[in-house]
């Protein structure tokens, strides 16, 4: 295979960033080496809930290689013992009064090397007085439960918020008149994104210039800079956050973690750069987990399977601090999109969130701000309904899916879906799968005691947060800037605010500009991940890069094109109204030969060519894109799984995924993102869970206990595509980074429960481990998230 020519714009092309990654020349945060750099390490709590009686750091301070030991008391003198979270709560940087989850940060050691820093942790003596533990969300609300957040004045329980969406009365009315109602308790257990690169930072505070340079593998460098400025009192122009290459994020690297703040303080105290890198255990037990939603759902329908309404009651476990990073006006994220892809008039949900003695977080792992939980709930409920009605689950979905003419469609909870052709996607998935033949095969196998299942899920996502009038994080509106500089030779530099964690922005964003200007993508250098070099924007998570920053990239290129048009008119001595654009050049209407290419125009724009009055010259432009609405990608997934009833082992044999994310800028990259999300879904459905014992001990604190899917658990994926552009996005693109993670878990679970129908198994909670499946076959399903 020889390298395909790069397309002039959209299309398959190899990634420009691969050249450095393939040679081991990426620059991840742990690769940053600065002269005189010291290493930090965090001492963590072994208890889930305990009062700190005393901390003795004298032996650690006496260690010959130790430069500083920082405790909460030290931070308190700087007013930094607590920091604000992204959800208007507070979180301890280093514990002063008590520890509230196992693995919480208690002290920070700065030493000459990483081994010495860890040695010194062993020398710190902490006297703890253990307290009763709340390890489960249902315990948190019980009368007399220990109050975790007694740091908050007047707090007498563990309640965080109650939040509602939809029309309660209308939903009750729909249920009262329904022929059929089914209900289901659906647990989405606590999971963790577990990027292979853990979180870390190198903080370098230069006393001479007063400038803080912070290398940090954050998904949101600009937001971090502003928060540091607001919290630490450093002037914002003196803070530079550099997100270098990032070894996977998946939402794990959005929040500000105590270790980052400690690294900054360590650098200020020692006058040297300080590197802090978590180890794997620290990453799993203390950083942003995902899910932990305990959902009760009910769905009402007519006897022939027309859905009439859905209602949901959720208990959300937010851990010890409410630190979810999401649009601040939406405390339960976008969960109220739980009505899914179906047409019915009434819906209501209520979410109650509580503190527990577990790590903080909840919004992470490609969840599109809780849409993962919503899709899992509705897709399980639809399957439960299908079984109750004795209908094929595909038929029931086709009967209730929104139809193309219903778009734009406003859901019962207020979302305006932009565009969609749902039946086409599901029909295509069924065609690729050979759905009817699969059902035949299933019947034949059942007759000889073999158990295969076919699971369907259909999802609608809302991504690309978002319109600044509704969406902000801590008051920072979620619009993204872009700057495009065109050099005299017609090559350019695009500066974007979003930050790649492997999504291939340096390729994709160059292709967006290339499409607009008609030049090769390789002529555009994409700069990202450095707050001194790029315009402000909220970062990369929630599948927002293409929907928001991608819109900005297209629009800034169009601005450049408009400027180029004026220059071209001057060059050709015609009016701009006489010019027509075709990819790469302007020509005079009626005379295709009379034309100027974008490269010729670029050179002229920097030359002594006389330009019309008021035209400054050069072609550079800047813009800020404030999306008018979210974009709504969707898809239809079918999983075929075989279950061994003797062992409970599930084998995903086939996985068919039809995704509609609008036009695909680089189909190769889009397919890669879908593949990764499907593996995530298989992992969550079959293997991954963060479980706790009653004392709050974490039972998944290494990759030996927290199991991730390998090449052997994943099948060869079968992908399909439909294209329904977003009508409001500059290039119609909808975003795809989280689609497969959101859409795939219910397909796997539905497949396994379908396989187990002969055993009368109608319910299973993830993960569907062999023990869990086998127990369910024996009639004793497990509670998978607690070792009670």
């Amino acid at each position, binding site marked *: 295979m020889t390298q395909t020519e790069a397309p002039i714009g959209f299309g398959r092309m190899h990634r420009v960033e691969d050249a450095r990654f393939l040679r081991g020349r990426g620059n991840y945060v742990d690769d940053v080496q600065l002269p005189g750099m010291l290493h930090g390490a965090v001492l963590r709590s072994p208890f889930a809930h305990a009062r700190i009686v005393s901390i003795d750091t004298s032996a650690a301070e006496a260690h010959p290689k130790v430069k500083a030991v920082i405790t909460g008391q030290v931070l308190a003198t700087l007013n930094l013992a607590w920091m604000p979270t992204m959800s208007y709560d507070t979180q301890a940087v280093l514990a002063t009064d008590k520890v509230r989850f196992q693995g919480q940060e208690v002290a920070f050691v700065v030493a000459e090397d990483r081994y010495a820093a860890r040695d010194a942790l062993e020398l710190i003596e902490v006297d703890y007085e253990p307290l009763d533990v709340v390890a489960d969300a249902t315990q948190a609300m019980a009368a007399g439960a220990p109050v975790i957040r007694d740091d908050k004045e007047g707090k007498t329980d563990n309640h965080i918020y109650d939040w509602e969406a939809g029309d309660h009365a209308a939903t009750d009315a729909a249920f009262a008149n329904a022929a059929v109602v089914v209900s289901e308790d659906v647990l989405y257990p606590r999971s963790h994104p577990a990027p*292979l690169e853990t979180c870390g930072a190198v903080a370098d505070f230069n006393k001479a210039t007063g400038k803080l340079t912070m290398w940090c593998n954050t998904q949101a460098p600009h937001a971090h800079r502003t928060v540091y400025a607001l919290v630490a009192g450093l002037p914002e122009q003196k803070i530079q956050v550099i997100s270098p290459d990032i070894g996977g994020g998946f939402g794990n690297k959005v929040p500000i973690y105590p270790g980052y703040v400690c690294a900054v303080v360590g650098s200020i105290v020692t006058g040297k750069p300080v590197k802090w890198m978590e180890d794997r255990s620290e990453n799993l037990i203390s950083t942003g987990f995902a899910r932990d939603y305990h959902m009760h759902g009910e769905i009402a329908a007519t006897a022939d399977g027309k859905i009439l309404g859905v209602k949901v009651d959720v208990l959300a476990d937010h851990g010890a601090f409410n630190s979810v990073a999401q649009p601040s006006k939406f405390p339960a994220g976008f969960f109220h999109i739980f009505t899914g892809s179906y047409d019915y008039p009434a819906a209501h949900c209520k979410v109650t969130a509580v503190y527990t003695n577990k790590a903080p977080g909840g919004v992470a792992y490609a969840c599109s701000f809780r849409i993962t939980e919503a899709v899992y709930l509705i897709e399980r409920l639809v399957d439960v309904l299908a079984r109750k009605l004795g209908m094929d689950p595909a038929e029931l979905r086709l009967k209730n899916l929104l139809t193309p003419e219903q778009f734009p469609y406003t859901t019962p909870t207020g979302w305006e879906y932009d565009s969609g052709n749902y039946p086409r996607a599901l029909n295509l998935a069924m065609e690729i799968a050979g759905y009817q033949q699969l059902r035949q095969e299933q019947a034949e196998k059942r007759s000889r005691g073999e158990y295969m299942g076919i699971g369907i899920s259909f999802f609608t996502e809302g991504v690309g947060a978002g319109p600044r009038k509704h969406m902000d994080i801590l008051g920072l509106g979620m619009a993204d800037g872009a700057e495009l500089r065109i050099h005299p030779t017609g090559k350019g530099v695009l500066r974007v605010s979003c930050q790649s964690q492997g999504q291939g922005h340096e390729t994709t964003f160059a292709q967006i500009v290339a499409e607009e200007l008609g030049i090769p993508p390789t002529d555009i250098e994409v700069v990202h991940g450095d707050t001194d070099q790029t315009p402000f924007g909220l970062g990369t998570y929630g599948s927002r890069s293409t929907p928001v920053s991608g819109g900005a990239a297209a629009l800034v290129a169009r601005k450049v094109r408009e400027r180029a048009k004026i220059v071209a008119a001057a060059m050709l001595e015609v009016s701009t109204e006489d010019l027509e654009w075709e990819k790469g050049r302007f020509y005079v209407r009626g005379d295709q030969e009379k034309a100027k290419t974008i490269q010729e125009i670029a050179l002229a724009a920097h030359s002594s060519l006389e330009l019309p009055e008021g035209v400054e010259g050069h072609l550079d432009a800047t813009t800020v894109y404030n999306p008018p609405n979210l974009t709504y990608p969707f898809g239809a997934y079918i999983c075929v799984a075989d279950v061994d009833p003797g062992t409970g082992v599930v084998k995903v044999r086939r996985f068919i995924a039809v995704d509609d994310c609008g036009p695909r800028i680089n189909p190769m990259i889009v397919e890669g993102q879908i593949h990764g999300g499907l593996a995530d879904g298989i992992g969550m459905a079959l293997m991954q869970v963060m479980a706790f014992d009653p004392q709050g001990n974490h039972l998944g604190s290494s990759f030996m206990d927290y199991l991730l899917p390998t090449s052997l658990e994943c099948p060869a994926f079968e992908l399909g595509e439909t294209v329904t552009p977003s009508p409001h996005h500059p290039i119609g693109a909808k975003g795809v980074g989280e689609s497969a993670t959101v859409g795939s878990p219910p397909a796997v679970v539905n497949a396994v429960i379908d396989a187990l129908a002969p055993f009368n198994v109608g319910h299973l909670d993830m993960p569907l481990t062999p023990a869990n499946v086998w127990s369910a076959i024996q009639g004793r399903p497990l509670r998978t998230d607690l070792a009670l």
Partner: protein
Amino acid sequence: MQITVGVNGESYTRDVEDRLLLVHFLRDTLGLTGTHWGCDTSNCGVCTVQVDGKPVKSCTMLAVMADGREVKTVEGLETAAGLDPVQQGFMACHGLQCGFCTPGMMLTARALLDRNPNPTEQEIRVAISGNLCRCTGYENIVQSVRWAAEHPASAEASEGVSA
């Protein structure tokens, strides 16, 4: 303790702590940061290097155990003739996204192809099952290794993917 380790064909003599892990020797002592670190428990495989031609997880081997042995890292895959077919295959088939698992994955793949030049998809899946990837779902990694198997010669490779 003084050790002498061959890395990518060059010999390095250094004084190291007995407890220094090979991954930190490569990254911190020699500055070869292409080898990554990911889990401490030899589950993830991002630290995979070759020691005397065999894939080894360098977070689970002491630097002193590499004394007198030859280590190959990602920095040693490319030769004067160009990129290794495995590197070309990963680019051609989009076998990497964030790039963090890629060095370890490629060294495992190289070792597989050295002992089995024409592996089946299942043999590839078994070979890389000790290397986790969180981005690709493995599909394109399997295709990348197949690509490398189908384009083994460096002469052919030099006409292939350029990076």
